[in-house]
């Protein structure tokens, strides 16, 4: 199949220009729908990131000073044990916490950390998670206790809100992606219709179907890709905005939601891939009806 790149590029460019209004419509629809997809993906990963540490029903964490003595530790454990609303507590060693911190923090942040300087912790499941505040109060400043952390109620709220948000985003995105492929299908059909004389002569003199098809398919792919590029930019900007909102503070919810760069890159790549896919599917269907003969 000797289809020269030069020929495909020329034909594609002229087709896109000929149908520029339809092209813009298709590109924008792809961009909007893929932005939604990208945002939904980011949101899901961000919330997952922020809540990793609060899984398994753990609702309060007591961090013990690395220098904690055995008696201090025993005293803390006994106190906890006596509280009626504490269901169970799990002890995590310094090594365990160190490994977890390395997983949750960016390399920059965990660099200064060593096993010896990492606090060990007691993670407690409560009968009633709302009592977490009471525990925090009680153990604040207690000998051997470095810090008490309880999940921000906001995280819990976020979880349910984002779950709904994600669903809405994904449904909207699917509808928009469908309309985007139909729009692309339509532009390709218009492009073929505009060149039906050429196409009929090409068939007559024995051009292969692939030769006729490739420029039109390429046109659809370019439209999908252009839209996806816009959406990828939206994803990256969103990531940067989240970062700025967090302002570098560990306790800030936005900051806890921010993602490592490689996850943002992967999300952008997924968005680009979907764009190319939508473009090829749309154009493939657009061409089918004309070139079957």
């Amino acid at each position, binding site marked *: *199949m000797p289809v020269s790149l030069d020929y495909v590029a020329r034909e594609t460019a002229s087709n896109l220009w000929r149908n520029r209004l339809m092209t813009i419509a298709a590109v924008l629809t792809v961009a909007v729908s893929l932005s939604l997809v990208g945002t939904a993906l980011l949101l899901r990963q961000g919330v997952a990131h922020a809540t990793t540490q609060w899984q398994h029903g753990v609702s309060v964490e007591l961090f013990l000073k690395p220098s904690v003595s055995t008696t201090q530790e025993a005293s803390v454990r006994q106190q906890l044990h006596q509280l009626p609303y504490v269901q169970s507590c799990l002890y995590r060693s310094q090594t365990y916490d160190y490994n977890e911190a390395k997983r949750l923090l960016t390399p920059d942040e965990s660099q200064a950390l060593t096993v010896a300087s990492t606090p060990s912790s007691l993670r407690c499941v409560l009968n009633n998670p709302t009592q977490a505040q009471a525990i925090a109060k009680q153990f604040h400043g207690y000998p051997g206790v470095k810090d008490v952390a309880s999940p921000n109620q906001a995280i819990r709220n976020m979880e349910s809100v984002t779950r709904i948000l994600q669903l809405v985003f994904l449904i909207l995105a699917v509808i928009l992606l469908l309309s985007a492929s139909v729009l692309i299908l339509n532009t390709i059909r218009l492009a073929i219709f505009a060149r039906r*004389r050429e196409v*009929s*002569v090409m*068939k007559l*003199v*024995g051009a*292969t*179907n692939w030769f006729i098809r490739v420029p039109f398919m390429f046109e659809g792919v370019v439209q999908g890709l252009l839209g996806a590029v816009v959406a990828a930019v939206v994803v990256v900007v969103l990531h940067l905005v989240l970062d700025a909102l967090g302002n570098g503070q560990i306790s800030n919810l936005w900051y806890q939601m921010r993602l490592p760069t490689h996850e943002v890159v992967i999300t952008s790549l997924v968005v680009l891939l979907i764009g190319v896919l939508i473009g090829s599917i749309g154009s493939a269907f657009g061409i089918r009806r004309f070139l079957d003969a």
Partner: protein
Amino acid sequence: MISFENVTKGYKGGTVAIRDMSLDIDKGEFVFLVGSSGSGKTTFIRLLLREEIPTSGRILVAGRDIANLSQWRIPYLRRNIGCVFQDFRLLPNKNVFENVAFALEVIGRPKHVVAAQVPQVLDLVGLSKKRESLPGELSGGEQQRVAVARAFVNRPLILLADEPTGNLDPATSQGIMRLLERINKTGTTVVIATHDSGIVDQMRRRVIELDHGTLVRDQARGVYGYGT
């Protein structure tokens, strides 16, 4: 070169365009296909181009049964058959040279082949001086010459012409016929479907007459109507 073996072509709705037709056309022949409108001439040509598939029977082109041709081979069949139509079918936004070159470009011929063959064939049809003109600036006869050049530039084995003189005056028609004769002398098989009795009578070539899809006459040095 072309062989029909008991070919029947029916359409949905019961119309039979070609009925049990058998004939042979040898390499290098010059054949007129005559008959009134609806006699099956156009279907005959569409069958040869594999735009239609026969309902029954076999059609051999250069020894190959084209009914069993797989989809991807059809373009290669068409590269062996040049085609000229009553309405020329030129691309209005391309000039004469580009129209002819297009036929070579879209089958992937390299640029140097295009640059060599197009001027040659334009010389053959006598349009070397009009290579920059657009089809709209040419007379009907000149446009048909461009169409012939486009059909012949790839040196096909067969040249089909469907009413090539249908839109032309008698003098111009004669010019086109002389051109097709010259092409025939290069060894190309030429098949012309026509109503143009003047030309058929004058040239006295093989005449195949169809009537309602049936072969009614096959005469070596025939005329348009019965008699003589």
